[in-house]
C-alpha cells in the first residue's frame, strides 16, 4: 500500500515536471537552427552580419563552422560522402563543381523566385541546373596592387607600358631603398603571377580551353607549351634582379600587407578582391591596382576571376523550406546590402547595392576598359581546376622553392609538376591516364 502511494507520487511529480517543461520546449521549437561550414578566409563580416540579422529578426540561426582553408576541401568531401555534411556549404563557385558532383550532393535552386534576379547565373550552373546562391557576380580581376604614395614619392607618375619600363620602375624603387615587389610565404600569393600569366600568354578563352582539355586528358604535357615555362622564368627573373623581399620563404601574408600599407614595399601581385580586403584593414593607405606589362602577352590581356563565393544546399537537409526562406530574405536589399557594407563588390542579385561608391575607382574603370575591348581571359586555375587539390602541396610550393634554391627553371618546375599530375590523375582514374 505504502509502495503504491510512493509510485503514484512519483508519477504525479513526473507529470507536473513534464507539463512545466512543455511550454519551454514549444518555445524552443519555434527557432529554426541551421548548420553550415565556411572557409576561414571567407568568413566575411558582411556574411556574419546577415546571419546575425536573420537570427534577430526571423529567429533563424545558422551555426557556421569556420574551417581552416587548407583542411576545408577534405573535410567537405568527407562529410558529403558520409552524409554528415551541414545544411549549407560555403565555397567558391564554380570551383565547387570540380571538387564534388553537385548532382549527387546539392539541391537545384532553379525554381526559386530570386533566380530571375541573378546577374551571373553561369557561375552556379551545372548541366543546365543551378546549385547555389552566390553573393557576388565576380571576384574581379588580377593585377599588381601598389602603394600610390610610394610611387609618387619616388617620382613615378606614369604606369609602365612595357616590360622594360616596368623593370626601370623596379630599379628606381630598389635604388631608393624600397622593396619593389613583395612575396609572402603563403603560397597562394606568388602563384597569382602564374595563374594570371599563363592565361595571358595563351591570350584567349578558346586557347585556354583547348590547352586545359589536352592537359587534363593526357593529350599534351605542360612543357609542350613553351610559353608556360616562359611565364615562370619571367617571374623567377624578379628574384634574380633583386626586386623581391629577401624573407619571402618565411614572412606571412598579413605582415606583407602591413609593409605595403606603410610604404616599406611598393607592390604585391593580387586581385581586386584582395585590394578591397587590404583597404578594409588599412583605410588610410593609398592603394590601387594595374595590369602589369609582361613579356609574353603583347595583346595586353587582363586575367579575371569568373568565380564568386556562394552557398550550396546539402541534399540531405531536413530544413529545405527554412533555407529557401533564408535565400529569399538574403536576396532583398535589406539583407543583401549588409554583405557589401564593409567590402564593396559586384552583387549577383539585382537591386542589391554593392557599395560601389566606396570601391576603389580604378577597379570598375580598368574592368570596363578591358571588357569593352574584349581583352579579358579567365585565370588559368579556372580551366585546370580538376588539379586544384594538387596546387597547394606541389606547384605553388615549387614556385617559392625554385628561387630559394636556384636549382629549377620554368621547364624543370613544370616537369616536376607533370609527375604530380600524372600520379594524381592515375589515382583518380581519369580519362586518358588508365
Amino acid at each position: 500500500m505504502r509502495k503504491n502511494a510512493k509510485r503514484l507520487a512519483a508519477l504525479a511529480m513526473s507529470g507536473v515536471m513534464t507539463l512545466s517543461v512543455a511550454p519551454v520546449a514549444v518555445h524552443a521549437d519555434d527557432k529554426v537552427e541551421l548548420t553550415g561550414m565556411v572557409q576561414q578566409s571567407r568568413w566575411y563580416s558582411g556574411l556574419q552580419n546577415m546571419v546575425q540579422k536573420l537570427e534577430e529578426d526571423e529567429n533563424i540561426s545558422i551555426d557556421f563552422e569556420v574551417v581552416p582553408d587548407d583542411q576545408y576541401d577534405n573535410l567537405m568531401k568527407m562529410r558529403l560522402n558520409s552524409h554528415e555534411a551541414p545544411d549549407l556549404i560555403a565555397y567558391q563557385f564554380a570551383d565547387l563543381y570540380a571538387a564534388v558532383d553537385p548532382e549527387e550532393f546539392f539541391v537545384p535552386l532553379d525554381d526559386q523566385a530570386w533566380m530571375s534576379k541573378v546577374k551571373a547565373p553561369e557561375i552556379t550552373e551545372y548541366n543546365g541546373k543551378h546549385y547555389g546562391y552566390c553573393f557576388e557576380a565576380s571576384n574581379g580581376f588580377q593585377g599588381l596592387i601598389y602603394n600610390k604614395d610610394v610611387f609618387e614619392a619616388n617620382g613615378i607618375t606614369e604606369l609602365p607600358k612595357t616590360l622594360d619600363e616596368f623593370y626601370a620602375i623596379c630599379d628606381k624603387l630598389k635604388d631608393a631603398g624600397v622593396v619593389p615587389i613583395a612575396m609572402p610565404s603563403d603560397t597562394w600569393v606568388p602563384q597569382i603571377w602564374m595563374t594570371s600569366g599563363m592565361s595571358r600568354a595563351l591570350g584567349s578563352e578558346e586557347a585556354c580551353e583547348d590547352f586545359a582539355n589536352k592537359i587534363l586528358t593526357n593529350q599534351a604535357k605542360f612543357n609542350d607549351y613553351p610559353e608556360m615555362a616562359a611565364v615562370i622564368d619571367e617571374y623567377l627573373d624578379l628574384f634574380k634582379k633583386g626586386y623581391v623581399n629577401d624573407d619571402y620563404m618565411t614572412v606571412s601574408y598579413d605582415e606583407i600587407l602591413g609593409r605595403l600599407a606603410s610604404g616599406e614595399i611598393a607592390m604585391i601581385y593580387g586581385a581586386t578582391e584582395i585590394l578591397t580586403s587590404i583597404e578594409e584593414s588599412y583605410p588610410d593607405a593609398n592603394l590601387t591596382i594595374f595590369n602589369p606589362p609582361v613579356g609574353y602577352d603583347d595583346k595586353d590581356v587582363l586575367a579575371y576571376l569568373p568565380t564568386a563565393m556562394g552557398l550550396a544546399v546539402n541534399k540531405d537537409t531536413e530544413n529545405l523550406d527554412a533555407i529557401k526562406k533564408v535565400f529569399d530574405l538574403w536576396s532583398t536589399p535589406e539583407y543583401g546590402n549588409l554583405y557589401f557594407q564593409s567590402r564593396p563588390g559586384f552583387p549577383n542579385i539585382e537591386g542589391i547595392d554593392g557599395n560601389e561608391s566606396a570601391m576603389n575607382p580604378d577597379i570598375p574603370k580598368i574592368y570596363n576598359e578591358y571588357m569593352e575591348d574584349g581583352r579579358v581571359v579567365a585565370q588559368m586555375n579556372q580551366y585546370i581546376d580538376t588539379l586544384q587539390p594538387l596546387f597547394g602541396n606541389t606547384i605553388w610550393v615549387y614556385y617559392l622553392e625554385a628561387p630559394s634554391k636556384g636549382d629549377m627553371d620554368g621547364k624543370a618546375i613544370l616537369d616536376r609538376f607533370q609527375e604530380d599530375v600524372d600520379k594524381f590523375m592515375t589515382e583518380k582514374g581519369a580519362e586518358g591516364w588508365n
Partner: protein
Amino acid sequence: MTKKKKSIYPLWVILPAIVVYTIFSVVPIVISLVCSFTDWNMGRLYTPVFRGLANYVELLKDPVFLRSIGNTFLFALATTVLKTVVGFLLALAMVKKIPGRGLMRTIYYAPCVISITVVGVLFKAILANKGLLNNVLQMIGCSGLAHDWLGSYGTAMGSVIMVETWMWAGFNMFIFISGLQAIPQDYYESATLDGATGFEKLKNITLPLIVPSMTVVVTLSVAGGLKVFDIIYVITNGGPGFDTQVLATYTYQSFSLGFLGESAAGSVILAVIVVIISFTMNHYLTKREVEM
C-alpha cells in the same frame, strides 16, 4: 599439492579497458594496415581496390618521402640526445638544496605545459627575419649573425630541434630528479670515505643507478621524436619548400591530397619504425639497469 595462484582482481574488471582500447586503437591500426594495400582515395571512398605493395613502392620512389625519413631520424636523434643531456644536467643542479629551487623547477618545467600553438606563434615571432632574435643581435652589434632562421634548411631544422629541447628538457628533468632521489645517500657517504672524487661518484654511482630513469626518458624521447608532427607543423609546416618535412607531416600532406591508401602506407611505415626502434632501445637499456 600445488596451490592455485589467486588473482587480485577478477578478469572482467579489465574488460571495459580492453574494449575501449580495441575499438579506438587496435581496430584503426588494423584498418590502416588493410587500407595501405588498396587504392583508397577521396574519389573512391566506398570502392577501394586491392593494389598490393604499390603504395609502398610509390612512397619509396618519392624523394620528398625519403628526405622526410632522413629528417625524422635526424630530429629524433638530435632531440633525444639534447633533451636527455640537458634534462640530466638540470636534474643534477635542481636536486641540490639551493635557495629558490622550487621556483626554478617550476620555470624549467613550464614550457611543456604551454600549448604547442602558442609555442609555434611565439618562436615564429622570435625567429622571423625581423623578429626578436635578429633585433637583439643587431642591438648588441652582431648584425652579421642575423639570419632568416626559418628560411633555410640548416637553421630551420636546427631551430625546431632547439624549440623541442626547450619544451621537453624540463619534463625529463623531473624524471631524472625522481631517479636521483631514489639513490641511497649511504653510497655517496661510503664513496666519500673511500676518497672518491665528485666525477668518480657520478660515473660509478649516479649513472649506473639512474639507468631506469634513462630508459624511460630515452624511450619516450625516441618515440616522440620519430612521431613528431605538431612542432614542425606550427613552426615550419615542412618548409622551406619540403626541407623540414618529416614522416608524420608527409603522411598528413598525402591525406590532404586525398591519397588515403598512400597516407595509410606512410602511417604503417612510421609505426613500424617507431615500434622497432623503441623496443630495441628499451630492451638495450633495460638490460643495463642495476638493482639498488
